């Protein structure tokens, strides 16, 4: 559904980006006039990112679903107030972030359910090299579980910044735009989060 698949791979990245932003611009124009088909295409493009961001932040899949749905609902309702179409992604993340913190206030952010933890083990088992010996695979599973536990203990601000930078692939400038903070404080948060993980993993 997204235009990403339609573009040939030989197109240079900058041109691809420009094409994508043009497509997004026209989709947003249409969605602003109430075209739900255009908004559906926008949803297809960003739902995965927002859902993963929410699920890594809140832990529970059900909560992440609620947050994602609320984010897109609010985005559709308030689309007319969006002036700069180029900032759409940041704007969407800001809405999601607000919803996450709102949910966090209502119920303290809970850890992952056992079900999710189990899925995590399966994911690591799948992604680790099947040719490697079982001992090594088990070790990497254990390490994976350990780093997940460490990640959950991080302060929410560090966790958020780290998720945006490493898992969502956003740059520091985009993160600072989402969080409304300076680039240097974003940089410091990521570094502190990494340092915390290093220290806790060493124990």
């Amino acid at each position: 559904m997204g235009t990403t698949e339609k573009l040939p791979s030989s197109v240079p990245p900058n041109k691809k980006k420009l094409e994508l932003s043009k497509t997004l611009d026209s989709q947003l124009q249409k969605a602003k006039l109430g075209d739900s088909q255009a908004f559906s295409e926008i949803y297809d493009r960003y739902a995965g990112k927002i859902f993963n961001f929410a699920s890594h932040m809140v832990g529970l899949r059900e909560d992440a679903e609620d947050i994602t749905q609320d984010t897109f609902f609010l985005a559709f309702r308030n689309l007319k107030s969006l002036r700069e179409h180029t900032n759409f992604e940041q704007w969407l993340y800001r809405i999601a972030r607000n919803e996450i913190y709102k949910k966090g206030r209502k119920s303290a952010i809970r850890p992952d359910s056992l079900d999710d933890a189990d899925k995590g083990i399966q994911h690591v088992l799948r992604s680790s090299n099947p040719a490697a010996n079982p001992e090594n695979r088990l070790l990497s599973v254990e390490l994976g579980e350990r780093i997940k536990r460490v990640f959950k203990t991080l302060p929410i601000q560090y966790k958020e910044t780290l998720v945006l930078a490493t898992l969502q692939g956003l740059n520091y400038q985009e993160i600072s735009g989402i969080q409304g903070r300076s680039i240097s404080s974003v940089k410091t948060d990521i570094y502190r989060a990494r340092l915390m993980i290093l220290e806790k993993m060493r124990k």
Partner: protein
Amino acid sequence: MSKRVCIKEVSLSAYLDGELSEEASGQIEIHLASCGKCSALYERMKSDGDLLLQSLSVMEPPARMKLQLFKRIDAAPERRPGLLEWMQTGQILPLRFRPWAYACVSMLFLAVVISAFHFQRRMENGRLLAEIDRSRAEWVARGNALNPFNISTDGAPLKFAAGNPFKAYLNER
């Protein structure tokens, strides 16, 4: 012999994210090649990051979520635009803001009328006081004993209605 200065850890983290300039990245690469301590730290940061990426599973949002969302969008009543949005479109004041606008204009009008009334009264009082001053000066100049400013007919102090400028004048003296 110059002392080798290690890279700040925060810069190492930014380098890992590709956030440094080409020049700064080049300097870090040169340093990492020669410093075991920094390269070990960099490798640990990198491997932890990779492990985190690997262990936090990427999930696909369920298809039913999209259906629910669009049902919700269709069912929701149309949102009324805020004042700012209306102003941006350049349209006349929306109907729901009109009572407030009328109330504000009425209050403003009332405030102007009251201020004008008070101003006019103050001007009038000033004019009267000037008149009294002038009369008194005339009486004094004539040396008239029956100066109306010093006596009362029944011996009691003179009483004036509230707000009488004459009273204010006497109080001042």
